[in-house]
């Protein structure tokens, strides 16, 4: 579509559509930034990973490129999110704001910038046709999609859990406990992941042991959820280690777990 806003496209996706981008390989983040009036520079940054400085309609995005290409792309997308949504404002995103991830409120500027970046790098109009038939959400599948879009495993995992066809959660643990999590729209709010990591979970071996990825395996839901009825259900877990943290995909196949008990309280 070359003119007018399509109601089903986000602002970021509309930009890609307007540029005629029809394959993941065409998503050149530097060029898109240029299209938005922002130049991308690379230099060592001591106290931040990326930043944007803007004056009027022009901006410079500086990224520390020691973090790997996929993370750099996400950071550029994130700063473009600020450029789109928070122009004229001064925002310093502290580490703890970013780590809140989906646990931060939907109006949190970091979350808004992250969502913009995810839409720019993993636009639904290209992603959804690719994952429509996905029956199982595994790290292997997430990795294939991440490669196709040159996106990070974390960003791709979040996007696939939140918008994919498989009812699931993505939980991130560091050695001191759960840092953030996100969920599929069909997973009821009562399935709230525990703060600590169960020593019987395979994720525990990934986080504290020497393996970088666990196999996908069935485990009692009480290993992950602190609820009275949790022991009667089984779920599937599969973890991978990213930057000293364990990212775990929890897949729910039991229909009873997906039934709403109370009024919906989804975010």
């Amino acid at each position, binding site marked *: *579509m070359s003119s007018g806003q399509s109601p089903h496209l986000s602002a970021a996706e509309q930009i890609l559509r307007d540029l005629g981008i029809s394959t993941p390989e065409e998503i*050149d983040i530097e*060029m898109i930034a240029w299209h938005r009036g922002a130049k991308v520079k690379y230099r060592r940054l001591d106290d931040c990973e990326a930043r944007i400085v803007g*004056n009027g309609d022009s901006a410079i995005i500086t990224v520390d490129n020691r973090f790997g290409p996929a993370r750099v792309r996400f950071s550029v997308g*994130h700063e473009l999110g600020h450029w789109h949504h*928070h122009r004229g404002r001064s925002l310093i*995103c502290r580490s703890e704001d970013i780590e809140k991830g989906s646990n931060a409120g939907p109006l949190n500027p970091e979350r808004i910038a992250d969502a913009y970046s995810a839409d720019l790098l993993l636009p639904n109009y290209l992603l959804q046709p690719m994952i429509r038939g996905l029956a199982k959400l595994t790290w292997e599948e997430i990795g294939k999609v991440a490669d196709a879009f040159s996106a990070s495993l974390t960003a791709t995992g979040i996007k696939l859990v939140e918008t994919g066809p498989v009812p699931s959660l993505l939980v991130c643990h560091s050695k001191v406990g759960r840092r953030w999590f996100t969920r599929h729209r069909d997973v009821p709010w009562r399935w709230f992941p525990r703060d600590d990591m169960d020593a019987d979970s395979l994720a525990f071996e990934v986080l504290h042991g020497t393996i970088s990825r666990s196999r996908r395996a069935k485990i009692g839901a009480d290993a992950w959820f602190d609820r009275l009825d949790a022991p009667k259900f089984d779920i599937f877990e599969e973890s991978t280690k990213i930057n000293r943290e364990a990212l775990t995909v929890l897949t729910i196949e039991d229909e009873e777990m997906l039934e709403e008990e109370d009024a919906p309280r989804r975010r």
Partner: protein
Amino acid sequence: MSGNGKRHPRDQIDRLADAHAEDIITMSDEEFLAELKEDGQDLKRLTAQGRAAISKADAAHDKGKLFALRESYKKMLAEQAVAARRPKVLELSLSEKRRILEFNASRLTLAARHGDNASENDVDGLLEDMIELGVINEEGRTK
């Protein structure tokens, strides 16, 4: 048309096509659809073909924009490679540099990912960006 007054077959076909096009343009929508039906045409198929042709033309136009954008981006990169000089403002003390930064901050859009403090290296980068964006001059004076 040839010089001896005889019409070239190609010209004759063109004139015929022009006449048909003129007929179609002057028809009302109802007359046009009725004619297609009379000819036994599949309207759904024709509509789909028309839409596909428009989408294709749109996509080609958008790809043209993508190409133009690539070219302007490459040009900017080439120009950027030429201009590289250490501005005088970077010779000032760190506290003076911070003062310039704070003085101009309200005019800027500013966001830093994982930005809890700014080292001298980071402050220098910010000042360079402000020069490039026309906020201050090379001495650090507000423009």
